[in-house]
């Protein structure tokens, strides 16, 4: 590689180097001109602020430039292919955004009187109906804030149902390929976790599962399709075995995008499942917006669902915030979240659903699965596929093809950045060595997939030709070169301090 050109300004072309906002501080500078406030009697009883809190002083154009410059270092789904497996980084349709900005939605306040928000409640109710219909489940909790929060909600329903029978049980079973949030959720709910191994097809080992089942098991948490991108073909047998042991079946719905309109989880014997509206239903995520993780519930768990809940009362829709015999919410395990859920995401998700319709949603999952299988088919001769295809919405490769090249999965991913691609998910799932999990989603055209595939093939060949030095130095062209992950984890600098103060400490 030729030596990079050094500039006197530190900027690189129109790629502008930007310091931290605190380093731009100019004392006394301010974006607004406010009149001096009138003197007020202090009623804070000695708890008032003693000194300035150290906010940086900047003018409005400085602030705008600061954030615009930083934003230009972002990589987003709006900029290019983002094949982060298990994350479903699909396009966020602009129609969703337009609808969410309608003043009737955008300017809502959660404390508004019920009669002034009938439209909003109807939207929640309509979305709830769609989600129940798509999953074949009888009830839904809309308030969970994201996927892991949904898992917590689901397991709390399960615990409440078991406690109502007088035995909360002790163990939750989790397959080795599970998202890390599954065992974390079970632990938070007071359960001990036992792992179920995968079989050589990358699916749950049914015999091993049956051995682990017993009167101490509260639930199994299973993702389907799983994190190897494979459909758990024995899911009905799994559900039957779990139910025979008196346990509940929690399904992690993170990968629902692969089966929308094709499979109704309720028909498979699943008792509850969260839906990531920010994945399957196209609401922004990954720094772009909050998640939203409604949980659908089978009849057995429905009575324990958290509050608040939208119910149809005599005077229209009503948001039930307190347990009520009359409204059938007396067994609820209580409140999980302040206010009512991620309203802005509900609006976007419903816009996505209504603009696609039932047939469009089915095509979403078909295209997502087709795209992943296209990637799989075009790469499997050069990269090593972990389990035989076809796959569902994501293709899992491992690092066997890099064996002996001196190039690691991490190096390979960094080289993808130089080629203009966000890397795939790496080193997850843990069931294969040096995992590369690629989820293209339905958003990508064949042209865009072909470009990605060509790059992956080029890099795989380059690694095999013994160009390890190039990979070790990647990324060569990113705004920042290889970051020291180890040091960042061992000695994280979590807070900026002024140079003077730092020296004094």
């Amino acid at each position, binding site marked *: 590689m030729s030596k990079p050109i050094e500039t006197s300004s530190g900027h690189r072309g129109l790629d502008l180097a930007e310091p931290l906002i605190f380093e731009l501080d100019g004392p006394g500078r301010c974006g607004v001109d406010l009149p001096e406030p009138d003197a007020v009697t202090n009623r804070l009883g000695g708890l008032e602020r003693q000194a300035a809190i150290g906010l940086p002083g900047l003018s409005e154009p400085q602030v705008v430039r600061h954030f615009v410059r930083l934003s230009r270092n972002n990589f987003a789904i709006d900029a290019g292919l983002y094949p982060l497996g298990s994350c479903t980084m699909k396009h966020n349709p602009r129609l969703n955004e337009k609808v969410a900005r309608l003043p009737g939605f955008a300017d809502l306040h959660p404390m508004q009187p019920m009669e002034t928000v009938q439209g909003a409640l109807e939207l929640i109710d309509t979305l709830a109906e769609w989600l129940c219909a798509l999953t074949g489940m009888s009830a839904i909790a809309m308030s969970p804030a994201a996927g892991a929060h949904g898992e917590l909600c689901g397991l709390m329903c399960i615990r409440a149902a078991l406690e109502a029978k007088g035995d909360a049980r002790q163990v939750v079973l989790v397959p080795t390929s599970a998202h890390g949030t599954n065992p974390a959720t079970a632990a938070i709910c007071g359960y001990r976790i036992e792992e179920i191994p995968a079989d050589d097809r990358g699916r749950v080992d049914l015999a091993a599962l049956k051995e682990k089942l017993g009167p101490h098991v509260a639930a199994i948490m299973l993702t389907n399709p799983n994190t190897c991108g494979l459909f758990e073909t024995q899911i009905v047998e799994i559900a039957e075995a779990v139910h025979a042991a008196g346990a509940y079946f929690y399904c992690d719905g993170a990968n629902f995008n692969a089966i929308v309109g094709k499979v109704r989880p309720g028909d498979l014997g699943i008792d509850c499942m969260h839906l990531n509206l920010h994945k399957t239903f196209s609401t922004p995520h990954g720094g772009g917006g909050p998640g939203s993780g409604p949980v659908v519930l089978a009849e057995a768990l429905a009575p324990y669902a958290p509050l608040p809940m939208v119910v149809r009362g005599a005077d229209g829709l009503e948001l039930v915030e307190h347990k009520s015999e009359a409204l059938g919410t007396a067994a609820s395990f209580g409140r999980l979240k302040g206010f009512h859920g991620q309203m802005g995401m509900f609006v976007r998700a419903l816009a996505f659903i209504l603009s696609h319709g039932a047939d469009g949603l089915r095509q979403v999952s078909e295209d997502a699965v087709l795209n992943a299988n296209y990637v799989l088919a075009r790469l499997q001769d050069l990269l090593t596929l972990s389990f035989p295809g076809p796959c569902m919405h994501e293709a899992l490769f491992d690092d066997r093809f890099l064996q002996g090249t001196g190039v690691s999965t991490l190096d390979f991913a960094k080289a993808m950045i130089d080629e203009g691609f966000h890397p795939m998910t790496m*080193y997850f799932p*843990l069931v294969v060595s040096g995992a590369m999990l690629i989820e293209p989603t339905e958003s990508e055209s064949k042209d865009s997939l072909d470009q990605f595939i060509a790059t992956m093939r080029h890099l795989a060949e380059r690694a095999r030709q013994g160009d390890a030095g190039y990979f070790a130095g990647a990324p060569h062209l990113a705004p920042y070169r290889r970051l020291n992950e*180890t040091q960042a*984890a*061992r000695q994280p600098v979590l807070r900026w301090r002024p140079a003077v103060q730092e020296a004094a400490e």
Partner: protein
Amino acid sequence: MSEIYYTEDHEWILVEGDIGTCGISEFAQEQLGDIVYVELPEPGKVVAQNDELAVVESVKAASEIYAPVSGEITESNDELVDEPGKINEDAMGDGWFFKIRISDAKELEDLLDKAAYEALIAGQR
């Protein structure tokens, strides 16, 4: 006279009298990559064989460390807390995790000797 044994989960135990010094194998260290965090047991803790005893976290993954034998923890290598990199540098030496007073030497028979462990990892490399 000291004797070293391994577990299938890649822990090692170096036995001197009734005290065993335990850590993770060179192979485990390599597989984990740069280690960034460890959680060690408190001395005095009494454990049964295969109990979860310590946690090790690398840039790639987090793993549990299990007790190779039953016994009482007599010492933990607290230096690892500030310098987890020692495990990468010297997994079989300075990177030891804890010492355990072995309560039942018979349990050592469940473990692998050096040759058996090397045969095990040969298939995984």
